[in-house]
């Protein structure tokens, strides 16, 4: 376009290019994909797995979005928003897959907006409030390392749709882990204050690690990553202190319900509305 005013160009159509900006042209995330659950795959178990993975992603995305307009630098504001957006994209695909596998045909919004806290299966680590930037970095490092290790295995899952979602997610999560690791090193090594905050964040995260490793057998891989990063950051390995209960069975902290209230409030205030 010319350097003429923006309003001159607004009338231009983009019909031939519906995916030129994020969020457009994706009404059905799994449009055109063969969604038949293959023989030999337990459809109910597949649906449960997808909802669980989607809940982890949706709740994390919600927390990451809360950094918008509050991050320490604009660069971080953009990065955290984009990481949240990646996870939101994963949640949409996984909910859609769950709706096909469990035979209810529910769409992504039915899972996200019309289930209560007790029905969510996310790990409690994901729902904890953001705290300071150090806490968010430590949480993201642990979450991304754990989810990446699990997604790498899921790329070989018997359901080709889930395997494809996982393959896409592996690329995204590799970046999320890298981003968090770089900040962990900066903050661990930076100043006395940043080091102190990182130590505190590690202590706050520690009780929620056990739940992650009960959920998936990826402990060795995750511990190896954390060891490498904490060494580079001059930080000790977090002490593992198990906490009873698990988000995987619907036992959540008091922080999930308010998070969901904010997420679901508008949608629930207008049942039958179209957005």
């Amino acid at each position, binding site marked *: 376009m010319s350097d003429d005013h923006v309003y001159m160009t607004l009338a231009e159509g983009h019909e031939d290019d519906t995916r030129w900006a994020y969020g457009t042209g994706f009404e059905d995330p799994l449009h055109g994909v063969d969604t038949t659950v293959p023989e030999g795959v337990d459809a109910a178990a597949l649906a449960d797995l997808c909802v669980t993975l989607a809940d982890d992603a949706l709740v994390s995305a919600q927390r990451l979005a809360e950094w918008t307009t509050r991050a320490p630098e604009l660069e971080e504001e953009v990065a955290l928003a984009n990481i949240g957006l990646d996870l939101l994209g994963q949640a*949409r695909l996984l909910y859609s897959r769950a709706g096909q596998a469990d035979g209810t045909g529910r769409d992504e919004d039915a899972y996200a907006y019309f289930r209560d806290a007790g029905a969510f299966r996310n790990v409690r680590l994901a729902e904890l409030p953001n705290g300071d930037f150090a806490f968010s970095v430590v949480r993201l490092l642990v979450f991304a390392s754990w989810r990446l290790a699990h997604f790498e295995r899921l790329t070989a899952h018997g359901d080709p749709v889930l395997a494809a979602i996982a393959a896409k997610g592996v690329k995204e999560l590799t970046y999320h882990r890298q981003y968090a690791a770089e900040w962990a090193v900066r903050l661990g090594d930076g100043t006395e204050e940043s080091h102190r905050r990182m130590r505190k964040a590690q202590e706050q995260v520690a009780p929620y690690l056990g739940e992650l490793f009960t959920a998936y057998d990826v402990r060795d891989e995750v511990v190896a990553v954390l060891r490498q990063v904490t060494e580079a950051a001059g930080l000790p390995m977090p002490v593992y202190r198990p906490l009873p209960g698990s988000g995987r069975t619907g036992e959540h902290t008091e922080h999930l319900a308010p998070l969901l209230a904010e997420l679901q409030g508008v949608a629930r205030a207008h049942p039958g*509305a179209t957005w």
Partner: protein
Amino acid sequence: MVGWEVGRMDTTRSSPVGTDGAEPDLQQHFDATIARDQRIEPRDWMPEGYRKTLIRQIAQHAHSEIIGMQPEGEWITRAPSLFVDGAAICNQVPLCRSSYGPYARAMVRICKEESFHQRQGYELLMTMMRGTQKQREMVQDAVNRWWWPSLMMFGPPDDASPNSAQSMAWKIKRHSNDELRRRFVDMTVPQAEKLGVTLPDPELRWNEELGHHDFGTPDWDELMRVIKGDGPCNDQRMERRRTAHEEGSWVREAATAHAAKQAARERKGAVA
């Protein structure tokens, strides 16, 4: 939203072309470049007033993007469908565009994004108008509240915009505030009709002779109050920005300290 320069309302006037004591050949070259519709690049000579006007305009644009994120951001965690959620956040991505590179080239990308936002907004409204009666009422209510502020966003009327003529002579601005405002009205009226909402201006009608719409006069006193820092959310928005900056200071200090340590370690490694 493409901002207009608040600064020109209340700061020093730009010096007119050719009067700030520059070498005549530099000034001539600058004038000729402008006359040929060519671009001024960062290393080119430019009159001081031109530079100041640009800095003011670009800074104002960046400020409006940063502050505009706050009301937008409130919706990210509340959007009523995951699809809307995904789309709402892309309104935040333009953050990375402030202050880098010459303005005109940046504007190509910015306008592409803005035009996406406009289309997205229109489609969202269209969807809501097809929804429940309550949703239609909410859309009309929003139109009632935002119509006049929207017209104000094009800036004060031309006869109260003292530096506009200079900006247009320099081709920093290509159209006057009133021209752009009228163009916006002409564009929006058919969209409102198609949506089925009423624009809250009893004076709004098509003027066959002029080939444009006639419309009422915005409350310019209100605009002046807003741009002088007396807007309804001014304190709240500034407070949020300051708090974010202050609470992030230890992070920025840590990043700087780490970079310095890292550089020192590398130097030491190179010597050893």
